[in-house]
């Protein structure tokens, strides 16, 4: 086959756009860029605001509980206060790893960055018990026990919290295994393919 003529035909086949379409595309890109920027700022603002509202609330509650010698409740609310600041920080750290196509880096470097970011997401979901459910669950259960004492209500409340958290935990692990793990494998294959530089 004559690949030179195929190349020429291929290049001719791309339809050039008229000026009005180009103008519309640029305006649309500008608009979407603005919206994207605004939505990222809005999301960061909401996360920070929620953390800054919850953390002082639990910190204040710790102070009150200490004043009343409710040691268990004080320890639990201190844990919840620290946790409410830690969660948005942890989410932001993982988000920062996401590679940006605008950096115009070569594909191999881009895929390696994407693999790292996807693995971080996988660890985030897979390890949700350690950084999210565990501290939050322990915190709310101990807080309830600290306030209500060792009662049947505390026991049933703890069971309800544990059941809910178990469902969330299993759901997240399932999402990590079913949605994110195959993506990591796919990226690894692409990286190997470029690195090997061999057969199609």
């Amino acid at each position, binding site marked *: *086959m004559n690949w030179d003529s195929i190349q020429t035909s*291929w290049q001719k086949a791309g339809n050039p756009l008229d000026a009005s379409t180009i103008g519309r595309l640029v305006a649309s890109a500008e608009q979407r860029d603005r919206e994207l920027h605004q939505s990222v700022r809005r999301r960061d603002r909401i996360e920070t605001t929620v953390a800054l509202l919850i953390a002082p609330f639990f910190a204040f509650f710790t102070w009150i509980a200490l004043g009343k010698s409710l040691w268990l409740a004080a320890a639990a609310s201190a844990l919840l206060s620290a946790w409410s600041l830690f969660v948005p920080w942890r989410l932001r750290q993982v988000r920062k790893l996401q590679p940006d196509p605008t950096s115009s880096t070569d*594909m191999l470097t881009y895929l390696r960055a994407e693999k790292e970011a996807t693995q971080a997401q996988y660890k985030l979901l897979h390890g949700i018990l350690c950084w999210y459910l565990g501290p939050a669950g322990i915190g709310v259960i101990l807080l309830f026990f600290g306030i209500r004492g060792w009662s049947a209500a505390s026991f049933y409340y703890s069971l309800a919290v544990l059941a809910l958290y178990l469902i969330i935990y299993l759901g997240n692990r399932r999402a990590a295994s079913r949605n994110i793990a195959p993506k990591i494998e796919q990226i690894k294959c692409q990286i190997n393919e*470029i690195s090997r*530089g*061999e057969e199609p």
Partner: protein
Amino acid sequence: LPESIAQTEAFENLLAANSGRLQHVARCYAFGHEVEDLLQEIHLQLWRSRHSFAGKSQINTWLYRVALNTAISFKCRRRQATISMEHPERLPANSDTDGSMHLLYEFLQSLSEVNRSVLLMYLEGLSHAEIAEVLGSKTNAVAVRLNRLKRAFENRYVEDSA
């Protein structure tokens, strides 16, 4: 602002000069109504990265790096439609090249993302060195890969080529 107007005009010129190439990228990595979505995503990423474009000599590598990285990410996020390859149409050995365009699309879509990128950039006229630069690979590796891709296409679609 004059600067932003100049930037917008420069970007419009860039899109006008490369609209065909970008459409090819979108058609090779997306299907049906998703082609338009991917094209918009590529335009957005090119717009956002316009400051990183350093000059005319690098336009090929810059454009394809942004477009292909965007396309691969886009494809990762969406479910891929599949194309039946059970009974591929075959071309006579002396076939008119225009008639082979739709088969080229079909062949491109059957390839892995990396091979698709290599063949696409070759068809768009990028040199082996430029393709290697976009991929982060070696020029020799690109040459070997391209030869194998051409042979694979001919074996699949061209009569009397095996």
